[in-house]
């Protein structure tokens, strides 16, 4: 699957990181980094949870 983050929306709440730390990381500089741009299906459940939890709805899963 392919993850798209709208960085203009992202406010670095870091809930995505708590749901899928292998994919999302908010670093001490306050910015979100995507560690795996196209994670395999084994990450789908946690990435979907990350997208749902995001309070600025910045994460979309494309296909």
């Amino acid at each position: 699957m392919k993850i798209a983050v709208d960085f203009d929306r992202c406010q670095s709440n870091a809930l995505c990181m708590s749901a899928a730390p292998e994919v999302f990381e908010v670093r001490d500089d306050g910015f979100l980094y995507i560690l795996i741009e196209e994670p395999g299906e084994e990450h789908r459940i946690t990435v979907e949870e990350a997208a749902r939890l995001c309070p600025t709805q910045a994460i979309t899963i494309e296909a």
Partner: protein
Amino acid sequence: VSDASRVLIVGASLAGLRTAESLRSNGFEGRVTLLDAESALPYDRPPLSKQFLAGTWDAERIALRVPGDVELLSGRRALSLDPMSRSVTCDDGTTHRADAVVIATGALPRRLSGAQNVHVIRTMDDSVALRERLVEGISVVVIGGGFIGSEVASTAHSLGCRVTVIEALPVPYERVLGAEMGRQCASLHERNGVPLLCGVGVEAIDEGSVRLTDGRVIVADVVVAGIGVSPATAWLDDSGIHVDNGVQCDESLRALMVDGSTSESVWAVGDIASWPNALFPLGDSAPERMRVEHWTTAAEMGEFVGQQIAATLGDLSADRGEAFTTIPYFWSDQYGSKIQFIGRATHADEVRVVEGPDDQGRLLALYRRGDRLSGVLGISRMKALMGYRAHLANQALWADVL
């Protein structure tokens, strides 16, 4: 699931919309109707005191998506609910019957009694009305140093207004975070040159100024009150639903009735719902009953109730035995800093600062209830704070997280 079945959701903000989405994603094929008092299309509220108020995000950017196969009846206010017939009557005279009703009417801002021309922030219209007044150089008095008031103060400050914050309590956020951490969060105002006057009330709001109970007079071209919200339960007064600081629900968010029974067909979600959250026990056993006014909780409640209704609509009285639990989370963006809290600060036996505060006020503090970690406060410590979410989910022992 019969095609003839219908779910009525009263309130089309985040919790209501998520309920509708969840009904569909969980395979509910009946009719889903959202009723909403506002005529504006559904929108997200957190930006109303921040990006939308500042004018950097427009209405389109804060719109919440309404699923295509959901009916939205906006601009009509629910006036009453009859749980027996599962029907809701609106101010346009229409009555809507359904097989399940979800109460999602949220909360309404408290207003200063007798005061005219005082802005509040709850709806998009409120935010637009205030935005039009926030011109560079004017004086703004914000009454209430809580999260909404502080965010409004921060936004007005960023627009070049001269802002003063008035707080009735000796320390802002004291009831939410405790005195010491309240002081730390409130220090963001003075660090950014915004005066914060605590422990003083408002005597009168005059033309161009605010008179305080200690006699001081503060110049005010614009006055904003951020003094909290109350659950919007007035329409439920004669319904038989048990209302006490919100709609009293059981652990699966089904509404309780005044006679002590549990409704078979009425649920509540979002700011209005009070329920026992089993992740946060008080003492040895009983879960803490809470009503949470946070974005993530509203979203999760909607998702949960949509799932419950989709699964049980064939047999509404079926007790699914599932409990809604969540780790409450809220954040507040002020002056470029981010305050975050995860878990519960109430009933804390100890608050321990484990990082900071540094010269910019950044810190991380842990809250203990009994022998467990119960909450974590961060100021611009996003990564470190979220590292504790799994510990809260696991009800980790205090000794193990230090």
